[in-house]
């Protein structure tokens, strides 16, 4: 069983997000990056599948500038067997089809049985890469996986629907499945894992070898959202806040 896990490196939830001078992206040099949350769950699920069937290979694949090798190493330290780094020069690509075609060109000869991705990235949140890739590679696809059950040539996926509903779906392999956060408890790398990761292979693919010439959509500008909501801020000591809240609930909202 050959499993690819697509991992994105994104700004941490506490990181500042300063815009670049031209406002087209965030200033990478001032940001703390982490592994995308749902991708971490996807990686853990891949490792558990490999452990369950006691066979196979888990390959972590990431696209981006040199800094993304840190999340590839993190994946290797947790137990993935090798890594693939699709290099990007300059600003990262945000067009999902463009990204998926890059991955497709690099992964198509690998003949993976299973591709796992996080549900969506915490930066642009397009939520498409794994499904686009699945379609482009002729795989069956499923999203929002909250439990998996691997068999020799199929995978059953418990999908999360809306409003507390679920559904099991059985897919023939090869398949591409996106994973919802909370599916498992991701492990931390062990010291032995961290040491061992240094010896594992990371294949580097230059941008010119994977990036299509075409673009399907563009992100032209980032900006801080303007709200037209009038917000009253309450701060100070607890008693002051509580007095004002009681007044709001009584007079403004007439809740009490």
């Amino acid at each position, binding site marked *: 069983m050959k499993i690819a896990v697509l991992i994105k490196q994104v700004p941490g939830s506490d990181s500042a997000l300063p815009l670049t001078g031209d406002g087209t992206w965030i200033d990478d040099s001032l940001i703390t990056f982490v592994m995308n949350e749902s991708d971490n769950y996807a990686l853990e699920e891949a490792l558990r599948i490999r452990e369950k069937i006691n066979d196979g290979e888990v390959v972590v694949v990431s696209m981006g500038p040199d800094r993304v090798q840190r999340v590839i190493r993190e994946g290797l330290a947790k137990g993935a067997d090798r890594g693939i780094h699709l290099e990007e020069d300059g600003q990262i690509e945000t067009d999902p089809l463009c990204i998926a075609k890059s991955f497709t060109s690099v992964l198509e000869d690998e003949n993976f049985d299973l591709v796992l991705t996080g549900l969506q990235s915490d930066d642009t949140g397009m939520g498409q890469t794994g499904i686009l890739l699945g379609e482009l590679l002729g795989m069956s696809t499923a999203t929002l996986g909250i439990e998996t059950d691997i068999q020799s040539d199929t995978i059953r996926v418990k999908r999360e629907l809306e409003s507390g509903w679920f559904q099991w779906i059985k897919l023939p392999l090869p398949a591409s499945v996106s994973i919802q956060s909370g599916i498992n408890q991701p492990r931390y790398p062990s010291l032995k894992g961290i040491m061992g990761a240094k010896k594992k292979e990371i294949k580097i693919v230059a941008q010119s070898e994977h990036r299509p010439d075409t673009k399907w959509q563009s992100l032209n500008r980032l900006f801080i959202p303007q*709200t037209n909501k009038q*917000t009253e801020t309450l701060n100070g000591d607890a008693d002051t806040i509580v007095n004002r809240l009681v007044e709001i609930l009584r007079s403004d909202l007439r809740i009490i």
Partner: protein
Amino acid sequence: MDILVVLEDNRGVLHRMSREAIAGAQKLASNMNLSVGALAIGENADTLANEVANTNMQEVLVVKNELVASYNADGYAETINQVIEQESPKIITVGHTYQTRDYFPRVSAKLDIPFIPDIIGVRLGDDPVFNKQVFNAKLAADLTAEADQVLISFQSAAYSEDEIESGKPLIREISVNLDPSLIRSESEKPFQEEAGEIDLESAEVIVSVGRGIEKEENIPIAFDLAKVIGGEIASSRPVVDSGWLPLFRQIGSSGQNVSPKLYFALGISGAIQHVVGMKGSKNIIAVNKDSDAPIFEIADYAVVGDLLEIIPKLTDALQAEKD
């Protein structure tokens, strides 16, 4: 037609967000001088078509192929692929539901046209500019299609179904050519894990708990407040994932959509997945230690402070008022 709205069958009735997508499509159409049509698929297609039979659209297309009687990604992606090829709409819209996330990217890859998801608004010019929240709603982005056709999905509540213009569309049954070998997945019957006996959607007051409650032992703080103001308890996803509250209390894209008179957000950061389920609330009081928490962007009252200190005091004060 120029703009095609794909309707979603939500267990036999039209999905609420399909109505919002119609409202969005109508707005786009009137501004860009385009025509709108809708597409209903599956065993409930007639019911869905009927539900939109009084809206201002050119026509409603109906597909009843048995391979797409109920939803499956393989069949839906191919059906919509063929309808787009037959009808050549410029813009194909849907609500940004879980089902949309499941098969719309497949359509994008099949037809080699962009899918711009989860948009909150459109700015019109020579080409429409689509507005999307990014970085967990801390920033917004302008996106444009670099193609003649584009798939777009609207975020929940981006448009209101109250804005739908009425009219009388033609209903036209069309056929698609699907081969049984196309459907590779086998879907089992959808089920609910724990049936909720609580109707959050009709609650007037909701006290909702987020990660800021810190630990399970602190949950009663929220229950005490809810009791004194007559509210129901709800929560954000991390609290449910931790097992501190059951799933049927979860608000947001994977939980319920609510619009109470008062939504009391305790220690909720305001991740977009949560906000889409509660931003229609009439009044929002948010309590959070972090003055930059995104929840404050949509709050009417932003309480910057420690909920573990403030809320018990508030509960006592409200109890004293009542006594």
